[in-house]
């Protein structure tokens, strides 16, 4: 913990943005359309609000305990052993999240670009990249995120901007209630599950220069990443229409494929898009990987997290290889994602309530004798 507290608010914001934007960019319109048909953007928006709620709870909790991460302050709030048990759940969940992100990435690369390369190789290369980068301290972690954010945002914005000329606004109507409510609610959960990376904020707050600005950072983080997600959904739905999207696995990739750069510099954009998307995946993977080993370090009260970085790689790889095929993988992803909301939203909310109660009781106890 000897690192100086140097993470600025902008860095915290960029960490959130680049962590949130990840593998989910590709299947997002599909999830949204399945749930809400033409009101996919609305479903996305509600999902973003739910995710924002979870993030704000976390940021607020962090600001109440500015020296600690969720692993350590949960032990203060709900007791040492209960806190540790819940922390183990959190760590396991992020371990799974890391491996699923790696697997999803591998699946896209194998289907989209390198058809003859074995899935294992692409996944291992990505995991190696993440685990080597994880050996740095938390300041370097924030530099890395901060550096890549413009490169993550730019290609998506370019693709959306160039493709909008084919848009058909009719595909977006009706805006609300394009589907039955239950389906839309389920979709909302799936979409907000894509924002689970924002859990990283609890790890950053103790290293921030001014932890009381965490709420501001998370607001901007969710605004920019959520805005981008919304933009993608609107663009894809407006261009392909809900029926078409249901036939495609990765509508965003398809969007990039239909886009042409003026001047015929490059015949197709999708490969370039995928290449830059590797960056987005890397930052997400990097975050969840880092969170896992950093939390493990805190749980076991170790001095250094470097050694853990290689140590957990086989586990991540093993978990990544478990799903049998793409369909199975996306089933798991949706299931794990929704279940994960229990950990990423309900658990912090629970902590916050107990924390409130405790401080209220403490105040009352203090007030009585005087």
């Amino acid at each position, binding site marked *: 913990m000897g690192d100086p507290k140097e993470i600025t608010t902008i860095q915290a914001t960029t960490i959130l943005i680049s962590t949130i934007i990840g593998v989910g960019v590709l299947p997002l319109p599909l999830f949204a359309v399945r749930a809400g048909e033409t009101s996919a953007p609305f479903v996305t928006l509600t999902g973003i609000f739910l995710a924002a709620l979870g993030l704000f709870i976390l940021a607020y909790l962090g600001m109440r305990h500015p020296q600690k991460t969720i692993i350590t302050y949960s032990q203060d709030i709900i007791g040492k052993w209960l806190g540790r048990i819940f922390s183990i759940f959190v760590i396991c969940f992020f371990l799974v999240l890391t491996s699923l992100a790696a697997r999803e990435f591998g699946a896209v690369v194998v289907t989209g670009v390198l058809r003859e390369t074995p899935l294992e190789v692409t996944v291992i290369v990505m995991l190696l990249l993440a685990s080597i980068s994880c050996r740095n301290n938390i300041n*370097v972690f924030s530099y*890395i995120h*901060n550096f*890549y954010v413009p490169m993550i945002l730019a290609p998506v914005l370019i693709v959306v901007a160039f493709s909008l000329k084919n848009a058909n606004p009719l595909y977006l109507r009706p805006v609300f209630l394009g589907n039955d409510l239950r389906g839309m609610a389920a979709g909302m959960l799936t979409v907000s599950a894509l924002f689970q990376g924002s859990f990283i904020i609890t790890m950053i707050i103790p290293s921030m220069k001014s932890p009381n600005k965490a709420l501001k950072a998370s607001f901007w983080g969710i605004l920019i990443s959520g805005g981008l997600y919304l933009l993608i959904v609107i663009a894809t739905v407006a261009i392909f229409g809900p029926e078409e999207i249901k036939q495609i696995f990765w509508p965003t990739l398809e969007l990039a494929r239909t886009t042409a750069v003026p001047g015929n510099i*490059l015949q197709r954009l999708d490969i370039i898009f995928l*290449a830059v998307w*590797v960056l987005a995946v890397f930052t997400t993977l990097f975050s969840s990987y880092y969170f896992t080993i950093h939390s493990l370090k805190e749980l076991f009260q170790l001095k250094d997290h470097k050694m853990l970085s290689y140590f957990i790689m086989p586990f991540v790889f093993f978990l990544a290889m478990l799903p049998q095929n793409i369909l199975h993988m996306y089933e798991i992803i949706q299931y794990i994602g929704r279940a994960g909301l229990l950990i990423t939203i309900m658990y912090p909310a629970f902590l916050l309530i107990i924390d409130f109660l405790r401080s209220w009781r403490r105040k009352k106890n203090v007030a009585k004798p005087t």
Partner: protein
Amino acid sequence: MSLFRKKKRNVKKPQLLTPSKALEKKGDTPTSISLMVKIKEVKELLGNNEDLQIKEFKIFGQYPAASVCLSSLINQDVLNQDILKPLMYVPEHLKGKEKPLNELVHLIVTETVYHSQAKVAEGKEQLIELMLRGESVIFIDGIKDSIHIDTRKIEKRSIAQPETEQVILGPREGFIESISTNIALLRYRLPTPDFQVKTMKIGRLTKSTVAICYLKGIANETVVKEVEKRLSEINIDAILDVGYLEQFIEDNPFSPFPQTQSTERPDKTVANLIEGRVAILVDGSPFSLLVPVVFNQFYQTTEDYSSRFLMGSFVRLARILALVFSLVFPSLYVSLISFNPELLPTEFAVAVAGGRAGVPYPAVIEVLIIEVSMEILREATVRLPKQVGGALSIVGVLVIGQAAVEAGLSSPITVVVIALTTIGSFATPTYTAAFALRMLRFPIMILAGIFGLYGVMVGVIFIFNHMLSLKSFGVPYMAPVSPEDSQGMKDVVIRSPLWWMPKRPEFLRPSNQNRLGLNDNKVLEHNKVGNDQREDAANGGSKGDHNYSSDNDLN
């Protein structure tokens, strides 16, 4: 090992660990009183040398004495005219005065010798060392103290234009080998008492003078201390160039990226000092070493700042493009050709395929062959004498390139790609940084051959992550991009107009940040007459224009 430890303990003494240790054994004992003994002792140590010059004479015709020096190092004229003459021939004002033996040394130093660098010392070790540095020592019979006078004269070349960093606009001076000249070049540009030069001696045999230059009140004190600390920990026999120091003080010696900047230009050194950096000079090296550095300064030149804003920015953009080219262009080519030819416009793809028709190797092998031969060619042209070099590059580039294409070793497009890459790497102004990218090109090329664009991306991410994790004397290497710094960002991609940058870059954590004076200068306001575009302050930066450089001091 025990030898080193012993040295560390008495580090205060001038280090002298000559291999024969003849001097060490004697230690730093005072010389004896007798002149004969003193001369004998010097002869014992230096007697084998042809250039040891011992001249015995009588001071004021009275006291026997001897001047001892190494004739190859000294200026004989100074010795004869300014030292020996007034000593042997009693000066006017001293005639008739009493000259007692116990006041003789004082009398000589203050009233007789015409030399500003006359000093008194008694340690034998110290005297010998001074003699080896070109001073003349005067032993006097019956006195323990000896007088040593700086009569050093070393041949040096004249100040010339720097060979490696040419500019079109800007000063033409370059550093030379002599450190005193180099410091003079810096002082000439920085006539301020804040300019500090600390010196130390490094190298057991070479005892090279190392100067740490910085601006007090601007440079960060912790950086200066860190530089001193790292330099004082060096224990090596020889420092022949500033590059030796670089390897001892850099943060990550195994990184391909340079973590210090060496420059031949005094103006660049001064510009960096003013930004808050520390410069290290070594006697015998025409380079100064600047720390801490960030990556973006490797593609900046002094010319960017001396030319107008648009010019400087345009050239800088071109240079950044060249930098990117030199790193990824061949690997992009490889991955497009062998993995994703569908990205290319159809006509071009057909042309590429036609060119590659006769080539038996896969694209990555072909590119690697040509790249390696290009590296050999480049190294050869550097080593060859100038007269041959031109001829060789013509033979190498034109003839071999043409022949390789005709022989079916490579396709014409490959040659074009490699040529562009090579030219791109020449456009990077700093040799060391260009070299880093030159080396890193090969692993990326191999990755591109295996994984296509995905491989290129992984390679690039890997390199960037490494760069982001580097630090140079506590300053993150990729600052001011990440960690972000709005003042520094104005000078990264474009070179903003000077009045847009009123503060020094914050990432160097300078003690004083104000570069421009406050808005109390009216010079540019007067220039506005008749130029209605700059009439009001909201109209493009005229509010910040009020800098004045006339009589403000540097702070």
